[in-house]
C-alpha cells in the first residue's frame, strides 16, 4: 500500500478552480477560509476574480446569487457546516429556487474534520441539500473524481453542492477516469451483496469486498458520486441481481446516501438495506483516522454490515 497516492479532495477543488480560472465567466467566493478550502490556489492565480466575503456565509450566498443573475458561474466556498448549515435558507431561497448558476464548494465535511470536533463535523449536509429542489449533490471519492466533478459542476446549468474532505484519502480512480454526472460507477462486480458507497467510504468498500471474498461472499461495489440526481437504475439493478444492499457514507445515517437508496428500493425493489454511516449522534475531537474507526466508518465495519445484509436476505 506504500505507493498509493493520497490527496484531500479539497486540494483537488483548489486545483480544478485554478484550471477553470481562465474562463471569463468564473468567479470564486470564500468566507475567510481560503487557506482551508484551498480556494487560495485560485486566488493566487486570479486575484481579480476572487471575492472574499468575510465571515458572513449567508450574505456570501446572496452575493453569489446576484453575481449569477448577470451571467457569472460562481463558486461559493466554505466549510460544509456553514455552507449547508448556516446558509441553508439562503441556498434554498436565493440560489436553488431561482435555479441560479452557483456551485457550492463545501469542504471539511464529515467526521474526518478531526480535532475541531462536533461544531465543525457536518454530517447533515447531504440530508439538508438533498431536500432542496433543483439541487445537484456530488460527493467525490478521491482527488481524481473531485477535480472532474468541479469541471462537471461548471458545465451544469443550475446549482450544485460539492462535498469535499479535509483528510488526504487514497486515490481509487485511474488518472484517465471519466466522470459522468448522475451516473454511478460499478467498481467491482459481485452477486451476493452490493456495497453502495460514497466519498471516502468508496476505498473502504473496496477493501471490505476483498475481505468478504475470503469469507466466500462475492460483493459488488458501486461508487455513487452523484447523490442527487441519484442513479436509480444502477441501484435497482444491484438490488435485483444481488438481493441485498449496504450503504456506506461519512454522513448521518439519516437522510444521506442510505436514506436515498432506501427510498428508491422500498418503492422499486424491496430488499434488505443496511445503512452504515454516523449514527444519530454528534462527533468528538480526535485524529481523523482514529475517529473514522471509532464511528465505524471503515472497511471492517462495512464487512460486518454486508454480512448482516447478506444474512437478512435468506
Amino acid at each position, binding site marked *: 500500500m506504500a505507493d498509493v497516492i493520497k490527496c484531500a479532495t479539497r486540494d483537488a477543488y483548489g486545483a480544478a478552480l485554478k484550471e477553470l480560472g481562465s474562463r471569463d465567466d468564473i468567479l470564486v467566493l470564500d468566507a475567510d477560509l481560503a487557506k482551508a478550502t484551498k480556494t487560495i490556489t485560485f486566488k493566487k492565480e486570479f486575484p481579480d476574480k476572487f471575492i472574499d466575503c468575510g465571515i458572513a456565509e*449567508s450574505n456570501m450566498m*446572496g*452575493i453569489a*446569487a*446576484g453575481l449569477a*443573475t448577470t451571467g457569472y458561474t460562481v463558486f461559493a466556498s466554505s466549510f460544509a457546516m456553514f455552507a449547508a448549515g448556516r446558509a441553508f435558507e439562503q441556498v434554498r431561497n*436565493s440560489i436553488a429556487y*431561482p435555479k441560479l448558476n452557483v456551485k457550492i464548494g463545501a469542504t471539511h465535511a464529515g467526521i474526518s474534520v478531526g480535532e475541531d470536533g462536533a461544531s465543525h463535523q457536518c454530517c447533515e449536509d447531504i440530508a439538508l441539500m438533498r431536500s432542496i429542489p433543483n439541487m445537484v449533490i456530488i460527493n467525490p471519492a478521491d482527488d481524481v473524481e473531485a477535480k472532474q466533478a468541479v469541471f462537471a459542476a461548471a458545465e451544469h446549468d443550475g446549482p450544485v453542492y460539492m462535498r469535499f474532505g479535509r483528510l488526504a484519502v487514497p486515490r481509487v480512480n485511474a488518472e484517465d477516469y471519466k466522470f459522468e454526472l448522475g451516473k454511478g460507477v460499478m467498481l467491482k462486480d459481485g452477486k451476493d451483496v452490493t456495497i453502495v458507497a460514497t466519498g471516502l467510504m468508496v476505498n473502504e468498500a473496496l477493501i471490505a469486498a476483498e475481505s468478504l471474498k475470503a469469507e466466500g461472499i462475492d460483493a459488488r461495489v458501486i461508487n455513487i458520486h452523484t447523490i442527487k440526481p441519484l442513479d436509480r437504475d444502477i441501484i435497482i439493478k444491484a438490488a435485483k441481481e444481488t438481493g441485498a444492499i449496504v450503504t456506506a457514507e461519512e454522513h448521518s445515517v439519516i437522510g444521506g446516501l442510505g436514506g436515498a437508496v432506501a427510498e428508491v428500493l422500498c418503492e422499486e425493489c424491496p430488499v434488505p438495506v443496511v445503512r452504515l454511516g454516523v449514527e444519530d449522534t454528534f462527533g468528538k475531537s480526535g485524529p481523523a483516522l482514529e475517529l473514522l474507526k471509532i464511528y465505524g466508518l471503515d472497511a471492517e465495519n462495512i464487512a460486518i454490515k454486508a454480512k448482516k445484509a447478506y444474512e437478512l436476505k435468506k
Partner: protein
Amino acid sequence: MEENKKLELKKIAVNVRKGVIEGTFNAKSGHPGGSLSIADVITYLYFAKMNVDPANPDDENRDRFVLSKGHTAPALYAALAHKGFFPVELIKTLRKPDSILQGHPSMRYTPGVDMSTGSLGQGISVACGMALAGKLKGKDYKVYTILGDGEIEEGQVWEAAMFAGNRQLDNLVAVVDYNNLQIDGSLDEVNSPYPIKEKFEAFNWNVIEINGHCFCEIEDAFTKADECKGKPICIISKSVKGKGVSFMENKCDWHGSAPNAEQYEIAMAELDKAMADLEV
C-alpha cells in the same frame, strides 16, 4: 420636478395602488399595507428612473430592481403590469394556481422580476452581488432594492451593508421603507432597529432621508444618489403603511390581510376619487 411629470406619476401611483387592492382582494390574501407604502417610490423607479424595457426584460445593461421586502409583491406586479411587462388583467390572478404572479416575487415566473425574494434580509445581499457584477464588468447600470424597516432586524441585512460599504458599491441604492410598523406592532415595541440613519452611516453608506410620498423629494433623493461616489446609498423613505386607503393607513393589522368585498368597494372608490381629483 415639472408639474406635468408629477401629475403623471401621481396618476400612475393611484393605478399601482388600485392594482394592490385588486390583487389582494381577488387573492383573498397578501400584503396590502406595505405595498401601499412603497407605491410612490416604486412608481418613480419604474416610470421616471430605471432604464428598463418591457420588450427586452433581460437586457444586460438594464438597471436592476430587487424587492427585498418581497411580501409587497402586489405593488411590484402592478408597476410592472402598467409598465407593459404583462397585461394589467393578470393582476387579478395574483396568488392563484397557474398564475405568473406568485405570492412573493419569482424571477422564473414573472417577466421583469430580476430576483426571487420573499425571505426577508436576502434581497439586499443579492442586490450587492448584482452591483458588484456591474463593477466587475464595467457596466454603468444601477441596482435598486427596497427593504422594509422591520426587515432590517434581520442580521443578514447588516452583513450585506458591511459588504457594500467595504466594496464602495456606489451603483447600489437601498431604500428603507420607513413606515414604523411590523406585524407584531410598532418597530420600537418589537425590536427597535433605531437609529437607522446612523447604523447605515456607520457601515460607510451615504444616507438620504425623505418623505416617501412626495415625488419631488423622491426625485431629489435618487438624483443625489446618482451623484454620490465611493459609497452605497441608503434612502430612508418615511412612509405611511396603507397609504391612500383611509381605513388601512397606519394600521399594522393591514400588513397581511386582504380587503373583503365591502372594504374593496370602499378602497376602490377612494382611489377612483383620488384619480378623479388628479384629472380635474
